[in-house]
């Protein structure tokens, strides 16, 4: 078993998410999630659709606040953050990777990668250097001047990964990152994640409905009907890169 820091990067206790509070159609999606993710972990959260994994992802990603419970992310008490503080937390601590890439249209790959740094107030020179470096790392150095419409799905996702890394966040939060890709490009993208995890010690949370994909990850958390029903770590389960 790998050794981790004593303080978890993600520390959730009794997370409850209820929609339409007080209304007739009140709906509790998460029923008290306890979750610790340590620095350097590669965690897959799996579950059928409707299991609450999107809701959990929104809360982990500080896009949404839980109705109840406590959530510390890299030492920050997320429950106390207002709208602007939530933006700052997302900007500096979380790198989002979406199923449908979500690159900004009519904007070059390089500018897309720079965007989180732009919102963090980094200088132009710093942004350009960092973006070039990361695009090179994901193998998109030659296409940094291309707009999203000129890139294939796999290429777009590689740009998105570069973008997620640009502010050196505490965790990478990938929501079905291969969901829109064919098996070959899926493989390339997953290999990048494994490489980031293994070589740079990145903490990655992968949300997926695919058991197959989850099986590649050292830790698998299974969500069902708003509860964690399984959480286990497996060793030596790396795919050769």
């Amino acid at each position, binding site marked *: 078993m790998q050794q981790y820091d004593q303080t978890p990067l993600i520390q959730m206790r009794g997370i409850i998410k209820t929609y339409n509070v007080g209304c007739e159609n009140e709906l509790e999606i998460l029923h008290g999630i306890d979750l610790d993710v340590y620095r350097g972990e590669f965690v897959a959260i799996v579950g059928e659709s409707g299991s609450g994994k999107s809701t959990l992802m929104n809360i982990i990603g500080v896009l949404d606040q839980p109705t109840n419970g406590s959530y510390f992310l890299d030492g920050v008490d997320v429950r106390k953050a207002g*709208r602007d503080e939530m933006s700052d937390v997302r900007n500096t601590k979380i790198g989002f990777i979406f199923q449908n890439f*979500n*690159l900004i249209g009519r904007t070059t790959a390089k500018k897309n990668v720079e*965007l989180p740094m*732009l919102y963090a*107030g980094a200088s132009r020179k710093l942004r350009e250097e960092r973006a070039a470096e990361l695009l090179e790392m994901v193998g998109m150095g030659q296409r940094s001047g291309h707009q999203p419409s000129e890139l294939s799905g796999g290429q777009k996702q590689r740009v998105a990964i570069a973008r997620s890394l640009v502010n050196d966040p505490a965790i990478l939060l990938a929501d079905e990152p291969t969901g829109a890709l064919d098996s070959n490009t899926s493989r390339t993208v997953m290999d990048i994640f494994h490489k980031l995890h293994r070589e740079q010690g990145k903490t990655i949370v992968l949300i997926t409905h695919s058991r197959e994909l989850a099986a590649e990850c050292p830790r698998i958390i299974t969500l069902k009907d708003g509860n964690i029903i399984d959480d286990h770590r497996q060793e030596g389960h790396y795919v050769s890169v």
Partner: protein
Amino acid sequence: MSVFENVRLALSSLMANKLRALLTMLGIIIGIGSVITIVTIGDSLTGSLNAEMSGFGARNVTVNIEQKDMPMFTDDMASDDSSFDYSYEYVEPTSKDFLTDEMIASYRKTFSSVIEAISVTENIGSAKLTNGRYKANVTLVGTNADNAVLEKIQMLSGRYVTDADSRTGRAVGVVSDLFVKRYFGGKVTPQQALGKSFAADVGGKNLRLYICGVYQYKQPDGKPGNADTETNVYLPIGTAKQSMQSPAGYRTLTVRPKQDTDSAKFLRDTGTYFSSFYTRNPKFTATASSMESMLKSMNKMLGNVKLGISAVAAISLLVGGIGVMNIMMVSVTERTREIGVRMALGAKGRVIRFQFIVEAMIICLIGGIIGVVLGVSLGSIGATLMKFPAKPSIPAILIAVAFSMGIGVFFGYYPANNASKLDPIEALRYE
């Protein structure tokens, strides 16, 4: 995120929808364009009128004797003529009411430091002169030496009438070069004309005058004089009064202040000075007026007209602004997902708001600049067609550009604020 980054972003999003951006701008272009056109034409008109009037001597002060309690045409009446009283009884002034040489002499002494010239004139009539088969039409004007200064007379030969001529009543006259050409059939030069005499029948009297000087005739409207053109023959005012047996004194006189004189103060002082001679006159007083004061009220009136038309034109700016707001609402809706992504990547609400306000401002600013160019061009063409030198107003241009940016902020705020309040999860899910 810097303003520069926002401007760049706004430009790229406008470039993606060129036609839409242009159509949106159209309202602003038409609004700003029409206001600037009107202001340019208006300013060119007033500028050229003022220049023309100054050429005629707008600063010259005219002193008139006037019936006491006669309603005056004042500035206020330009807007409201109901106060005009038509019921006064007209009384003919007699020689004891006239402005006298003594008054003029003491006035000249008192204000010697600011007076350049004082002219008195008396028109004694027109005459058709014949010299064998040659003919010339003249108007005989009795005047003094200073009149040459006021009327900017250019002598070609000889001299102008002098005050000594007037005192002694010498029968001399100053004629135009056109008169010389007509009357002597082109056989005599201005130099040779000196000392020659001619006779004129005016007011039933036959007047023989000896030519003491020839001045250059200036066509008043640029048209060349023809055979019937009447030119002035200036004779000493004393001679004129003697021969016409008219009473001493003047109904009117004209004063030119020296350059750099405070003309408004000079006008007041002159009026006060001359009216002081009339405090004991029951029926008449003296008043001073100048073209400049008339010009002021005319400019004020033109300014109001310009403002009124501009206000009507500015309504199209309002319509344009609403167009900008509408297109920004559409743009925000279209880009909901993009806004969600930006928020997920850490853009705060105010950053998103600023981005859209800048975009609205850029639309309006570009529209405003195009409008200014269009307005200045159309205004200049208009002014040129009306034969005025075009004079685009720099303050109006600056105000127009600033105002168009203001419209951008005002009408862009609401859609931009909506964008900034989007829920990132909802926005990311938007298809």
